[in-house]
């Protein structure tokens, strides 16, 4: 699409610092920080950057936390500083609405990931159609993609394509996949989608596999890769863009991004912003290993402390109960039930 700067790029890098990164910052990123990060990304030649509450449109809530500022304020701040990059956002039907999407468009957003759980693509037709009507670069984003098999996922992607999506993403929300899982899914999608429909991959680094998975996706036919500079994102973070670009350079895959600019940005801007070191640690590795939605990390840590239950126990239980993205309320519910069973005092006020 003409809105996106594709010059000299085989693979389109889409940065998530200012959306997925919001999860890692408990939604507390200032507009000044947003502008600083966006400017650096734009200067380093990153063609797409996602901006909003971590949960995307409609995300401000007790369930997902309230951000420091409204999405409109963030978009306006970022819109002022970008010169070549396209600003995108996230819309999860059931949380965000078409009205929210129209407001986003008015504030300069020209691309959207319309996201559903990997088996529920048919909750997205009106939102995908609406995005296309607005003239936005429109992506169908299949979350927790490890919970559907390659053929099933391909059918879901085909549905999104039929609604109007121009790109279909395989989203490894739990950081659970291994390269062979990614290859199988990209291949299955490539077999059923129209040749002009692109495939994207959105990784999380919970098992330390995000770069390897992204490269595997490209080798199987993906042309869009999500990541975040410094890995600022939920769980153990997204695919670290600077390292991914370095690997691509060595492999002869052109991204059009400035490696040294990204390295400097990670070191000088992103790492100092982190409240905790976003890395593979006990909780995030548990998520990758058990297949739990990465955004649950900080919630589970907080609730675990509140009720005296190790976060790892809560995360494993959530994985067994097959809780999916958006069910953050079930973290406290699960902890309360576990606390009762363990005879812990839960009369906390």
């Amino acid at each position, binding site marked *: 699409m003409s809105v996106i700067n594709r010059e000299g790029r085989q693979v389109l890098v889409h940065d998530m610092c200012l959306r997925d990164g919001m999860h890692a910052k408990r939604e507390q990123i200032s507009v000044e920080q947003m502008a600083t990060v966006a400017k650096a990304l734009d200067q380093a030649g990153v063609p797409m950057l996602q901006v909003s509450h971590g949960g995307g449109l*409609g995300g401000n809530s007790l*369930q997902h936390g309230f951000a420091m500022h409204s999405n409109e304020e963030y978009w306006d701040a970022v819109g002022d500083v970008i010169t070549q990059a396209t600003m995108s956002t996230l819309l999860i039907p059931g949380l965000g*609405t078409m009205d929210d999407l129209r407001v986003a468009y008015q504030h300069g957003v020209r691309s959207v990931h319309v996201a559903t759980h990997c*088996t529920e693509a048919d909750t997205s037709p009106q939102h995908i159609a609406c995005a296309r009507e607005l003239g936005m670069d429109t992506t169908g984003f299949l979350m927790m993609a490890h919970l559907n098999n390659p053929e099933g996922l391909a059918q879901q992607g085909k549905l999104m394509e039929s609604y109007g999506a121009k790109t279909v993403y395989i989203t490894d929300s739990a950081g659970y996949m291994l390269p062979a899982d990614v290859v199988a899914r990209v291949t299955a999608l490539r077999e059923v989608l129209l040749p002009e429909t692109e495939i994207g991959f959105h990784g999380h680094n919970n098992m330390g596999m995000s770069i390897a998975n992204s490269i595997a996706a490209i080798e199987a036919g993906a042309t869009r890769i999500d990541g975040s500079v410094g890995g600022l994102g939920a769980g153990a973070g997204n695919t670290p863009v600077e390292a991914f670009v370095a690997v691509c350079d060595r492999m002869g895959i052109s991204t059009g991004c400035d490696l040294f600019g990204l390295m400097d940005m990670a070191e000088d801007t992103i790492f100092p912003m982190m409240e905790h070191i976003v890395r593979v640690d006990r909780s995030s590795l548990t998520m990758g290993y058990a297949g739990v939605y990465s955004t649950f990390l900080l919630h589970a840590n907080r609730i675990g402390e509140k009720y005296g239950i190790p976060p790892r126990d809560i995360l494993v239980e959530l994985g067994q109960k*097959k809780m999916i993205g958006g069910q953050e*309320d079930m973290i*406290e*519910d699960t902890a309360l039930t576990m606390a009762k069973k363990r005879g812990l005092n839960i009369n906390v006020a």
Partner: protein
Amino acid sequence: MSKIKCALIGSGNIGTDLIYKIQRSEFLEPVWMVGIDPESEGLRRAADMGLKTTAEGVDGLLPHVLEDGVQIAFDATSAYVHAENSRKLNALGVFMVDLTPAAIGPLCVPPVNLTELAGATMNVNMISCAGQATIPIVNAVARIQDVDYAEIVASLASLSIGPGTRANLDEFTYTTSNAICKVGGARRGKALAIINPADPPMIMRNTISCVTDAEPDKEKITESVMAMIGEVQKYVPGYKLVNGPVFEGNKVVVFMEVAGLGDYLPTYAGNLDIMTAAGCRTAEMFAQEILAGRMELKPTEAVA
């Protein structure tokens, strides 16, 4: 005792489950099922259960309304066709129970405001399954003290959500959020829906959070919530408190579960039951009014 004859419009999950609920009613009797696909399982099942059926939409029903004495119609189609259905049937003096998110008529959550609506309208709207499952709790808090903000999260089993709801999730969001304020009594409201495909399917779960203006009176709120749960259990026995109320600052959180009766879909689909049971209970109240001669159904020009 004579019963009020009912037509069901929409032969999907909700319409089909309603047949079972209405057949058990002391005051209602299902006589017509209206669909649009002659091959649909819903129409076939309705015919097997002894209802007259048409696959020609509401227009296929209209010529039979007077001769068959249909006085109440349940609309379980979609927000987009409800207005037209309601206009046509109201014009024949048929009272409408709207189970779509169209919300043309007053919003109704039986234990909260059903009695206020008696005789006042020819169309009532049942909001949404999440609305029926959560607004009683919002109201249970709001009747004790002012609620600035209420937020509900409904988790639904994928197998229980039909194609109509899936294709129109925004209408669900708007209608439910609005009703949290208008019926629940919160100043601001927000509704979130999550569709979970876990196998075996998860029972419908709802988390209700209310932020009160002043520090919450824990004892009174807990008592009010428990009383309200008892009221809902009268028509949905599987409406159950799992955890809470949890108090944190001015926030009150209640974790609920709704198991269905397993009439049409298995018990995990409590969302289906709470909607159809609420619709049925609402219709029964109006039916009792009609049977007692307190309410007369007149052909009307509906607000469309």
